[in-house]
C-alpha cells in the first residue's frame, strides 16, 4: 500500500494550501463564485452544481477504486480515514437545513469563500453567517435536548457496499460501476430539463453547455470503471489468494518486531499454555480454533499479519484467507524463532564478512534483550595493517 502518504505536519500544511488553491480555482471557473449560477440548480434552468459535483464524485471515486484494485491503496482505509460516521437522523434533518441555507444565501460554505475572494459582498456575509452559526450550534449541541438530536442514530463508519452486503474488496468498484451508469443517465436528464426551461432562464445564469468534451468525459468514466473491474482479476491486486503463502524468516520478523512494531501484527496459533509461557514479543495468543473470532476479513490491512505455529504452517488457516492485507507465515514457526532469538548465537568464524558479523551482533542483541543474558562480545572486525607514509599535515588543530 503506497497511498495515503501521510506527510509530516508542515508538508501537509503546504499541501493544504495547494489543494485549496486547486479547489478554489476550479470552483470559481465553474461559476460557483456567483450566487445566481449556483441557485439556478433549484429553479431548473442551470444544473451546473449537480453536473460538476457529481462528475467530481465519480472521478475521485474511480481514482481511489482503480488504485486500490491494483494494490497501490485501499479504498476502505481511505474511506475510514476521510469520511465521518453515519448519523441518519441528524444528517437527514441537517441536510434539509443546509439545502435551505444554500438557496437563501446563494452559496454553500465552500463556495461562499470563493465568492468572498472574488469581491462579492453577499459571499462575505455568508462566510460571517456560517461562522456565527457554527459557533451557536457548538454552544448548543451539548445541552440535553440538542445532544439527543446531535448524536442520534449513530451507525459508525457505514458504506453503501456494506448496506448491500457486498464484499469489501470488490464492493466499491462494483458500486462505482453502478454510480457511473446513474451519473451518465442523470446528466442526460439534467440537460433535457435545462433545454425545457431555457426560455425562462436568468440571463445571469445560463446553463454552460457540455458540448463535445462531454462525450470524452463519459467515455473516460466508463473506461476507468471497466479498468477497475478488470483489476479485480489481477494477480497483483490484494485480492484474496493472491498473496497467500508468503513466508518471513525469524531474523526478518525480529527486525520488524523490534524496529517497526507498528507495521506488523503477530498471531500465535499454538495452544494457549505454550503461547502463554513463551512467545514473540507483542504477539497475540489465539489458538487456531479461535482464529475466526478475530474476524480477520474485516480487520485493518494497514499492518501485515504474521501467523506462526509450532513448526511450519501446513496451510493458511481458512479464517485468515480473507484477510485484506498482506499475510505472512513465520518460516519454521516457534521452533525456528526459539533457535534464532532465545539460543546463544554462533560466533562468526575468523575472517567472516562484515555482513556476517553484523547479523551476529543483531542476533546476540535480540537474545540478550529477550533473555537478559549477555553474549560474548563479537571478535573485533579485521583491521587493515597500519599503513605507511608520514602523517600528512592539515586539519584544524594539527599544529
Amino acid at each position: 500500500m503506497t497511498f495515503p502518504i501521510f506527510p509530516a505536519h508542515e508538508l501537509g500544511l503546504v499541501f493544504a494550501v495547494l489543494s485549496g488553491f486547486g479547489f478554489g480555482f476550479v470552483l470559481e471557473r465553474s461559476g460557483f463564485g456567483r450566487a445566481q449560477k449556483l441557485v439556478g440548480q433549484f429553479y431548473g434552468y442551470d444544473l451546473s452544481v449537480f453536473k460538476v459535483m457529481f462528475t467530481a464524485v465519480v472521478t475521485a471515486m474511480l481514482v481511489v477504486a482503480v488504485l486500490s484494485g491494483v494494490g497501490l491503496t485501499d479504498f476502505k482505509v481511505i474511506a475510514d480515514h476521510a469520511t465521518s460516521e453515519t448519523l441518519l437522523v441528524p444528517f437527514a434533518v441537517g441536510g434539509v437545513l443546509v439545502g435551505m441555507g444554500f438557496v437563501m444565501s446563494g452559496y454553500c460554505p465552500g463556495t461562499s469563500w470563493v465568492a468572498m475572494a472574488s469581491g462579492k459582498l453577499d459571499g462575505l456575509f455568508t462566510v460571517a453567517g456560517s461562522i456565527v452559526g457554527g459557533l451557536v450550534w457548538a454552544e448548543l449541541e451539548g445541552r440535553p435536548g440538542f445532544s439527543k438530536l446531535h448524536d442520534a442514530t449513530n451507525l459508525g463508519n457505514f458504506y453503501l457496499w456494506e448496506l448491500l452486503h457486498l464484499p469489501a474488496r470488490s464492493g466499491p468498484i462494483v458500486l462505482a460501476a453502478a454510480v457511473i451508469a446513474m451519473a451518465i443517465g442523470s446528466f442526460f436528464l439534467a440537460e433535457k430539463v435545462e433545454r425545457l426551461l431555457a426560455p425562462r432562464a436568468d440571463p445571469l445564469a445560463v446553463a454552460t453547455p457540455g458540448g463535445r468534451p462531454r462525450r470524452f468525459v463519459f467515455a473516460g468514466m466508463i473506461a476507468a470503471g471497466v479498468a477497475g473491474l478488470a483489476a479485480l482479476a489481477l494477480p497483483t491486486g490484494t485480492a484474496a489468494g493472491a498473496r497467500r503463502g508468503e513466508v518471513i524468516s525469524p531474523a526478518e520478523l525480529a527486525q520488524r518486531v523490534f524496529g517497526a512494531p507498528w507495521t506488523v501484527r503477530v498471531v500465535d496459533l499454538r495452544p494457549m499454555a505454550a503461547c502463554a509461557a513463551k512467545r514473540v514479543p507483542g504477539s497475540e495468543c489465539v489458538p487456531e480454533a479461535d482464529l475466526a473470532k478475530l474476524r480477520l476479513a474485516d480487520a485493518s490491512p494497514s499492518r501485515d499479519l504474521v501467523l506462526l505455529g509450532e513448526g511450519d504452517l501446513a496451510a493458511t488457516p481458512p479464517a485468515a484467507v480473507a484477510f485484506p492485507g498482506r499475510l505472512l507465515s513465520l518460516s519454521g514457526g516457534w521452533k525456528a524463532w526459539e533457535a534464532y532469538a532465545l539460543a546463544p548465537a554462533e560466533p562468526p568464524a575468523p575472517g567472516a564478512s562484515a555482513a556476517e558479523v553484523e547479523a551476529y551482533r543483531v542476533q546476540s542483541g535480540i537474545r540478550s534483550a529477550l533473555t537478559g543474558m549477555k553474549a560474548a562480545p563479537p571478535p573485533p572486525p579485521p583491521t587493515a595493517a597500519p599503513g605507511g607514509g608520514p602523517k600528512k599535515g592539515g586539519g584544524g588543530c594539527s599544529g
Partner: protein
Amino acid sequence: MERNPEKFWNPYLAGVALGLVLAATYLVMGTGLGASGGSLRMGVAALSAVAPDHVAATPALARAAASEHAGWLVYELAGVVLGGLVAAYTSGRLKAEVLKGPRISTAGRLALALAGGVLMGAAAKLTRGCASGQALTGGALLSVGSWVFFLSFFAGGYGLAWFVRREWR
C-alpha cells in the same frame, strides 16, 4: 488567456478537475476537502481570544480548537481564497458587488445571505460537514451518511426555492 466574465468551464471537465484535486487530497493526506470545519475553527480562534475560559469549558468548542484536521482546513481555506482570487482576476470576474435579482434590495439580499449562512453553519455541525466535507468527500467514498446528506440537501433546496424566488429573479 481571454478575460470574459461570461465564460465558464465546461461543467463536466470542471468536475473531472475537481475530482482530481479531491483524489490527490485523499492519496496524500488520507482526508478530503472541507470548508465548514475550517470556518468554525476560525470562529473558535476569535472567540478564544476574547473568552479563552469559555472555549475550554465548552466541549464542542474545545474539540474544534484541538482538532488537527480543522487546523489543516484553515490552511486549505487560505488556498481556496487564493485560488478563487486568481481565477476571478484572470477571468475578469473580480469585482466588488452584491449579486442579487432586480426585485430585492441590497440590504434584504445581505440579510438573507447572513441568515442563510447562519443556518448552514449550524446545520453543518449537525451533519459533520457541508457540501464539500460531506457530499463530495464522503459521497466519493460511498459513505451511506454522505448520500443521505446529498439527497436531503437537494430536498431542502428545492423545498424552499419557490419561497425565495424574488431574491433571484
